[in-house]
């Protein structure tokens, strides 16, 4: 095994189709910006890139086949290098990073470009559009009418029942996230919101409000990774990848992702996410107490409360108290999503796993400005996506 480092990262600011940020830019244009920035940050040229690991989008680019990595190669120059297009729903960016990491760690390549970008269709994420009675996602939408927010809301409702979480506490997650995003030049929303503003936003799926779920966004992120050996030629202070892990859902998961499942014996709701994070802890020898900060997939505020408990970062039922005491803010003892999270960026699905690697890198280098976690030494990143996919990565300085 070779030790793997992050040499450079880049991002295109997130936005929504037609706005002043992303306008009508194609996914290739968004990715070009992120990749250029990552290569400059790393100090490498396109010709030094030995392989591309790309998150494969179902929504945009990739010649309609999710061949997003091929678009990148075509755009930067057809050097003939291998391309890996990774599909894993919203976990695709994390999966792409994992494959890039594995290629370098395994000694197959020394320098790999990881990239994810997306131009999202408007509105709630829809199914494939194929009316196939064998597709559980189709059946769930057709027979029940239960899009993503309704799924998250049932989890949030159960938390309210189990722990007495209030709507104010749920809203305070957004207030905290948007305060972080004020000092993130890549965030789609760069303005703080008040508790009253969040509580005044309409329910999308009661108990979750508009400001408490992440909208769809356009954006892109890229990372240049290489072996520690090779990194010496470029930098004296590389960010080390302690580990990268991928997992899928367990049979005993407590929430039916399609229509039904057996009544579970255990209480774990996102076994794929927990499994990926536990694997990452185990492989790196880094435990929950060693983590300086976490970037987790907050499609909704609920996850910021539930995930840290599921992974042992804090005790079950403790998250609300930590939030209200300011412990999950960048300056607290358990910083969560100092970037502003998905709630401030919106989700450009396949970019998110790479977006987290970029934020971890900036934080660990001490380049995160007003959202900087003081003396950040170790960062944890986590994504999960349709199909029961999840990824986790731990980076350290």
């Amino acid at each position: 095994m070779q030790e793997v480092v992050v040499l450079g990262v880049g991002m295109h600011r997130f936005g929504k189709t037609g706005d002043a940020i992303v306008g009508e830019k194609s996914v290739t244009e968004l990715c070009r910006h992120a990749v250029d920035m990552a290569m400059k940050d790393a100090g490498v040229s396109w010709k030094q890139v030995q392989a591309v690991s790309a998150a494969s989008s179902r929504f945009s680019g990739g010649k309609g086949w999710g061949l997003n990595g091929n678009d990148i190669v075509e755009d930067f120059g057809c050097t003939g290098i291998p391309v890996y297009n990774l599909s894993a729903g919203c976990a695709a960016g994390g999966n792409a990073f994992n494959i890039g990491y594995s290629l370098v760690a395994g000694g197959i390549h020394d320098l790999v470009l990881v990239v994810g970008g997306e131009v999202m269709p408007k509105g709630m994420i829809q199914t494939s559009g194929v009316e196939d009675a064998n597709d559980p996602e189709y059946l769930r939408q057709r027979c029940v009418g239960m899009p993503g927010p309704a799924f998250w809301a049932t989890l949030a409702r159960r938390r309210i029942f189990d722990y007495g979480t209030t709507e104010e506490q749920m809203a305070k997650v957004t207030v905290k996230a948007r305060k972080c995003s004020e000092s993130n030049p890549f965030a789609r929303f760069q303005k703080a919101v008040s508790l009253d503003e969040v509580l005044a936003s309409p329910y999308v799926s009661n108990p979750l409000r508009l400001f408490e779920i992440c909208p769809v966004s356009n954006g892109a992120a890229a990372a240049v990774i290489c072996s520690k050996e090779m990194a010496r030629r470029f930098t004296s202070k590389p960010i080390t990848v302690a580990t990268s892990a991928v997992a899928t859902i367990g049979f005993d998961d407590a929430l039916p992702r399609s229509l039904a499942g057996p009544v579970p014996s255990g209480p774990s709701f996102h076994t794929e996410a927990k499994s990926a994070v536990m694997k990452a802890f185990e492989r790196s020898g880094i435990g929950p107490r060693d983590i300086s900060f976490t970037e987790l997939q907050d499609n909704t505020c609920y996850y910021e409360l539930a995930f840290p408990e599921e992974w042992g970062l804090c005790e079950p039922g403790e998250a609300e108290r930590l939030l209200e005491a300011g412990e999950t803010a960048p300056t607290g003892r358990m910083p969560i999503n100092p970037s502003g999270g998905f709630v401030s960026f919106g989700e450009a699905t396949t970019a998110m796993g790479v977006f987290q690697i970029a934020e971890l890198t900036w934080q660990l280098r001490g380049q995160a400005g007003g959202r900087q976690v003081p003396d950040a030494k170790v960062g944890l990143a986590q994504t999960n996506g349709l199909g029961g996919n999840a990824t986790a990565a731990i980076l350290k300085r």
Partner: protein
Amino acid sequence: MNEIANTAALREPCVPGLFSEEEGARLHGARCNCCNTPYFPRVATCRNPSCDESRIVPCTFGGEGNLWSYSVADFPPPPPHRYDQPFVPYAIGVVDLDSGLRVVGQMVDPAEAMQVGARVRLVIEPIHHGDGKAFTSWKFKLL
């Protein structure tokens, strides 16, 4: 609308083969005779990794259960869902049937009436109307 809904002959499942209502509301699923895992919809093989031998037999689920949690669709969901105009927000339940199946479904009663832990019963009810027909799905009714 209600007249159409109440005429059995004009009721049609929104997706055929998943449920029936002739002898009471039933979901058409399966159970593994080896590990006792319930499935809905039907599966070809048992998916329980700790099951020694997949022995799938068709069975149906219905009757009563407990509302484990619920949410509300406050905005019209995207296609392929279909609904009557004007859109009326509806509650969605996650229900633990007494037969061991945890299943999602729309709730018949208004969102304000929901309570985690409530007793509910499986019913077949219209979800939208069109072409002179009432298209049905499974739902849950508070007892």
